[in-house]
């Protein structure tokens, strides 16, 4: 009874624009939190792993749901804008285009839930979701994809080069971001502030030599680096079995302890991340997490995604393991939220994305005069040569 009254008064004292339906919804007796069982992680060189149960508060649940829906809708909108040619790709032959996370939402939202904003994160090219979870707005992200001046990199970076505070992109060269991440972890240790760096790479990149060089140095110097392999079972069109002699990615750090995590369950990802971050912060050195996930769409916009796998496989995953559905079911079944309430979030998210897409479509392109800007940092302005000796651009830092 008290809870109901509290809920009602909260609503009444809140923003006046809340609709009547919201009052109705809020007057229901929701639980504050619920405990869930999560899959046990496979362990490598670890005596104990993350807990197998976790508590999800209503507040967190709603937050995660909203974030995951936002990432998913944002990416679906990007897909749409791409098909309408409002977002352009570069060379359709290379990898560098349009790489959507769909179903990897649990990874970006779950990882963020397990760390602090003062921690650091770096990933490869499938970066839009992380750009959002690390703090940028959907507007800035979509406007960057459409190449407008309102984009987070002023339209000069595009899909693979988005950055935010403590988020280092967005990197096009497969595997190169892993030594970079170890370097950021070195800075964390050097500065002595108990910060960690999450360094992500895919199952395809996991076979890069420089990753093993980074493992070695991170372990030698006990860098607070969480190496995270997002295993979505395919590197472009090559399944893991055809690319790796060992597909136990969580073991491939060898001397580095590892855990294999259900990447489709956001709570699993969160708990594993908390565990890994605590491990690193205690000064024990690096740790490796493999997030098992799946990719609905093709590798990029030019890949229909069915020449190397079956539609049945895709359907099976979609119906049984969708991360957003998983969270929704849990919340509704435990009375943490109602179906209507979550639907309302869907509506709000859709509107936010729509507004952002409008902005991204209407915003002007960056001015031509700025072509030469930001080549160097902190330097006085200088001249940059254009296509011939008479065309000159100004460069300011």
């Amino acid at each position, binding site marked *: 009874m008290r809870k109901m009254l509290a809920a009602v008064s909260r609503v009444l004292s809140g923003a006046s624009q809340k609709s009547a339906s919201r009052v109705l919804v809020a007057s229901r007796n929701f639980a504050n939190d619920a405990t869930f069982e999560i899959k046990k992680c496979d362990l490598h060189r670890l005596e104990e792993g993350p807990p197998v149960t976790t508590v999800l508060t209503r507040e967190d649940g709603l937050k995660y749901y909203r974030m995951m829906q936002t990432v998913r809708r944002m990416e679906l909108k990007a897909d749409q804008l791409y098909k309408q040619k409002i977002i352009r790709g570069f060379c359709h032959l290379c990898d560098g285009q349009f790489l959507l996370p769909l179903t990897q939402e649990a990874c970006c939202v779950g990882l963020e839930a397990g760390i602090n904003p003062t921690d*650091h994160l*770096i990933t490869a090219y499938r970066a839009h979701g992380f750009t959002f979870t690390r703090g940028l707005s959907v507007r800035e992200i979509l406007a960057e994809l459409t190449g407008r001046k309102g984009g987070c990199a002023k339209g000069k970076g595009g899909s693979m*080069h988005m950055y935010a505070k403590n988020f*280092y992109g967005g*990197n*096009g*060269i497969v595997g*190169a971001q*892993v*030594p*970079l*991440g*170890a*370097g*950021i*972890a*070195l*800075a*964390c240790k*050097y*500065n002595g502030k108990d910060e960690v*760096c999450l360094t992500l790479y895919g199952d395809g990149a996991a076979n890069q*030599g*420089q990753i093993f*060089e*980074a493992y*070695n*140095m991170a372990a*030698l*110097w006990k860098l607070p680096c969480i190496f995270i392999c997002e295993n979505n079972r395919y590197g472009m069109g090559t399944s893991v079995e055809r690319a790796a002699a060992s597909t136990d990615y969580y073991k491939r750090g060898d001397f580095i302890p590892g855990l294999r995590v259900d990447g489709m369950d956001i709570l699993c990802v969160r708990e594993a991340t908390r565990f890994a971050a605590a491990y690193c912060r205690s000064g024990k050195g690096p740790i490796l997490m493999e997030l098992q996930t799946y990719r609905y769409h093709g590798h990029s916009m030019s890949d229909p995604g069915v020449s190397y796998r079956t539609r049945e496989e895709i359907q099976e995953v979609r119906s049984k393991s969708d991360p957003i559905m998983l969270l929704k079911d849990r919340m509704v079944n435990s009375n943490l939220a109602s179906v209507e309430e979550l639907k309302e979030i869907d509506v709000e998210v859709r509107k936010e994305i729509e507004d952002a897409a409008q902005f991204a479509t209407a915003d002007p392109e960056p001015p031509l005069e700025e072509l030469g800007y930001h*080549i*160097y*940092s*902190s*330097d006085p302005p*200088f001249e*940059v040569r254009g296509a011939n*000796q008479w065309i000159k651009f100004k460069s300011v830092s």
Partner: protein
Amino acid sequence: MAAVSGLVRRPLREVSGLLKRRFHWTARAALQVTVRDAINQGMDEELERDEKVFLLGEEVAQYDGAYKVSRGLWKKYGDKRIIDTPISEMGFAGIAVGAAMAGLRPICEFMTFNFSMQAIDQVINSAAKTYYMSGVAAQHSQCFAAWYGHCPGLKVVSPWNSEDAKGLIKSAIRDNNPVVVLENELMYGVPFEFPPEAQSKDFLIPIGKAKIERQGTHITVVSHSRPVGHCLEAAAVLSKEGVECEVINMRTIRPMDMETIEASVMKTNHLVTVEGGWPQFGVGAEICARIMEGPAFNFLDAPAVRVTGADVPMPYAKILEDNSIPQVKDIIFAIKKTLNI
């Protein structure tokens, strides 16, 4: 009186400075400093000045550096700031770039250029697009000025003597951009006169500014790195024959100081470029192209000429090696040809 006391004071300060740095200098505080010691001094001063500066590379710490360039630094600064790496160029170059992205100021040393090639992806793709600070690349057999000089987003400097070495590495460390420092290992042991201003902890050589090492009126000779010395030798020989060469030490490859070169050519009306790198798509080629685009072209009385390394992979046998790099006689020959004498 003031002048005399100044003369007395300076050597004493030098001696105490020397003792502090544990160099083996004579008690007379010789004003001769080798390139190696100048680089060491520059790094030492910057490590002391800014907590964020650190050095990583193979054998830089306990071994004192493969070429002893980092001698004494590990003893002074310890494990945190002077880091020995495994043989993993691509890995530790990436780590250096990542650390710089997170706000530190790493000096990343490659033992030889070969090894920098393994890491060239991190230098070009990770660094040139992000603001960071990098550094030391010792040349092995070839000159990499043209390779790195090709890329926007990088700065590339090429010291010749000790003064250059110290001033440029200090500027490179303080620059908020990636800077490739092309040291020539054959120069490490060569002593040069160290002017008083170079002995200061605040001695910096601006990146992007060339230096006229020798004034002249008959011909402009532009060079960088070790060949600068050969150009000065050639100039000394030619001076006896009444030909006065103006020798320019580029010091910076990118951004290139065309103003100094153009002003000189407009004065002398003749140009020879000298470099250790291969001829195709090289530093000399760039200078000639730019001369044609600017005011100096109309002042040329003869086509500009390039003296370069031979267009071959570096051979091993001494006689072959000697003839693969520009020698003093080659420079003299080119100058005389240009002047039609």
